[in-house]
């Protein structure tokens, strides 16, 4: 059976964010019923599936209900060609993904075709997905995941083991290589769900900031109407301004959030969107799309460069979902700065 050893590693992200008051919510990591053969676990023995197959698949009952339906449907279709037709049918009926969400952060790595996945939480804190691809078969696979996982609680989504792909009988979903788009799609969807949950948790602690992105999606259309105004604001700046009056609304939000979360001793937020004004990704957003950030904070101590960047990205995730295109980040600790 294929090994998915990379699968749990992406969750190490969660450690710094665990709020001490809620250990139980994330304890499922240790009591998980996900079974991986090659990882020495300190968890209780994985659940045996009722069929005595040696592969120890996650029992189908554990999967989100819609996903179970989809699996059963595929199992009932025996002929491979018909399976493809079914797959393509799903893809055809997938809701289109707005171009503004076709960002690097939403792109699935390791696909020969281009696949984007967007995730947000609805008002009940369930994760909702949207996806698109230029390849019809990949779009079908994406649609399958979107239909199967959307509207479900984050924990349920996180528990899904990619093993279920076997049950579909679609061969290309099975190879565990890094080029397995299906596996990577699922991983990305799970990672985004986790990040959303963490963000929401954080948000609900400090009042008013756990904005459910539902509101944001309505706001983005508002924002694009306000395009010209904020566009003008953005272009009137000329580069590095520590003067906060030079920033537009997004710039201000970024500054506030970083100040609140990281208590930096130095913080520079520079809107460089004008440098990217020609890009496809910029059109349709509110003009504030590219920022340079320079942050000196104790929060970065003990964290690798990658972890520091991840921290900043996760704090600004909402912005990234709603038109922020790219960040250039310099993240230092106070001691690193003094050493100069």
């Amino acid at each position, binding site marked *: 059976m294929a090994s998915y050893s990379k699968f749990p590693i992406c969750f190490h992200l969660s450690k710094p964010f665990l709020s001490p008051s809620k250990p139980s919510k994330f304890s499922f990591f240790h009591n998980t019923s996900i079974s991986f053969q090659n990882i020495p676990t300190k968890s209780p023995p994985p659940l045996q599936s009722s069929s005595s197959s040696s592969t120890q698949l996650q029992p189908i009952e554990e999967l989100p209900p819609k996903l179970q339906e989809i699996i059963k449907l595929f199992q009932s279709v025996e002929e491979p060609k018909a399976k493809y037709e079914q797959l393509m049918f799903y893809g055809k009926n997938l809701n289109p993904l707005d171009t503004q969400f076709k960002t690097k952060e939403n792109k699935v790595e390791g696909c020969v075709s281009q696949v984007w996945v967007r995730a947000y939480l609805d008002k009940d804190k369930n994760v909702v997905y949207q996806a698109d691809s*230029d*390849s019809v078969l*990949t779009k079908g696979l994406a649609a399958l995941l979107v239909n199967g996982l959307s509207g479900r609680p984050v924990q349920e989504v996180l528990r899904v083991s990619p093993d279920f792909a076997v049950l579909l009988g679609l061969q290309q979903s099975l190879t565990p290589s890094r080029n397995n788009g299906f596996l990577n799609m699922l991983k990305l969807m799970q990672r985004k769900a986790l990040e959303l949950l963490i963000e929401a948790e954080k948000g609900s602690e400090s009042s008013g900031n756990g904005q459910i992105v539902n509101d944001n999606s309505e706001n983005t259309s508002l924002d694009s109407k306000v395009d010209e105004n904020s566009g003008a604001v953005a272009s009137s700046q000329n580069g590095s301004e520590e003067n906060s009056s030079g920033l537009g609304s997004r710039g201000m939000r970024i500054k506030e959030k970083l100040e609140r979360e990281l208590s930096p001793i130095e913080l520079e937020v520079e809107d460089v969107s004008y440098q990217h004004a020609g890009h496809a990704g910029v059109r349709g957003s509110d003009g504030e799309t590219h920022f340079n950030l320079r942050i000196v904070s104790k929060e970065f101590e003990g964290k690798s460069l990658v972890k520091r960047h991840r921290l900043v990205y996760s704090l600004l995730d909402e912005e990234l979902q709603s038109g922020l295109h790219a960040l250039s980040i310099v993240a230092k600790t106070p001691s690193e700065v003094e050493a100069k």
Partner: protein
Amino acid sequence: MEGLVVKLPSFPFLSPNISSSSSSSTFRLGFRRFSASISAAVNEGFVSLGQLTRPDFPILHQEVNGSKLVYLDNAATSQKPTAVLKSLQNYYEAYNSNVHRGIHYLSAKATDEYELARKKVAAFINASDSAEIVFTRNATEAINLVAYSWGLSNLKPRDEIILTIAEHHSAIVPWQIVAQKTGAILKFVSLDENEVPDVEKLREMISTSTKLVVVHHVSNVLGSVLPIEDIVIWAHAVGAKVLVDACQSVPHMVVDVQGLDADFLVASSHKMCGPTGIGFLFGKSNLLLTMPPFLGGGEMISDVFLDHSTYAEPPSRFEAGTPAIGEAIGLGAAIDYLSGIGMQKIHDYEMELANYLYEKLCSVPNIRIYGPKPSDDIHRAALCSFNIENIHPTDIATFLDQQHGVAIRSGHHCAQPLHRRLGVNASARASLHFYNTEEDVDNFIQSLNDTVSFFNSFK
């Protein structure tokens, strides 16, 4: 239809004591009568080269996903004949031993065979001396060798390196790295109206600032062939060197480094019916002699002290550590096999197949084939990269594999800049070798048409 089936033999009578590479006639002698019967069979039209050689390739005789395998991904890697498989097995069974240092019988035998393989490579590409052949892991490593060894010690700020936008990533990235370190500048030649690198432009770009020209011989995407002799003449006129990426040419046609007068030439064994894990760099002796080592370690040294070491002469200077001995010998066996058929014969057959493939592909509606249209002046290699309107190449490749057992490749084929210039993210590619047949092409086209109707019916 019945015809002669002459099974190509492995060549056990090859004497290991061949002294010089120019005595190619010595080991070709035995092959002549075999080649003659092959020629006869093929010329009389009884059976094609593909049909004749297929039995030598065990891997081709299998089913995948319920259909007969049709392997059309040879530009990615070629299949190996039994002769090569046997030589690998024989090496490990009979005389595996570390080379160059041992006194004992096995070690001497292994060394002899290893060095014989080097001579075979030299003879195969008509190098004047086997010391001009450096064994590497593959062509990519060979290019890196030139970049780090020759490049770092010869390039200065503002020196120019000319490449084409159709180069394989392995011919671009090492030079980007070295250019960054040395301050040299990379200049790229774009395509002309035939979708071939613009040779006239290239000629114009060559100036006294040019220190190196890096070009492919045959493009793995466009199927085009560049006039290397001319390019070398223009480059040498300004004192520039030429590095030829011959990965797609050495396996398919006669390549003569002295005729081309190339300074450096690289190729990979696995594309020419040899095992993976071995490739080679050809470098003119006078160049290799001036080059500092690439990787350091055993084998490439002369004397080692605590504070410094002295280095061996080329090619050993560039072969640190225990080499891929069995694989080199396997490559030698592959060369024997290919020589037994004759590279010219292989080339002629593949030209026919190339034209057949192109013609047949053109008949598929809404298809766009990249590269030049074949004509009397323009020859295409036996490969076609293409896209079909409104169908993603990955979908095509997946369906062809799953439903028809046809193996092609989809993606950027390690040529992202080229694809960007062509305006696409990816393309599908079918590439042939001498063991493919017209039937393979027919099968492919039929399956492709089925694939296209399947996806179109869904729109």
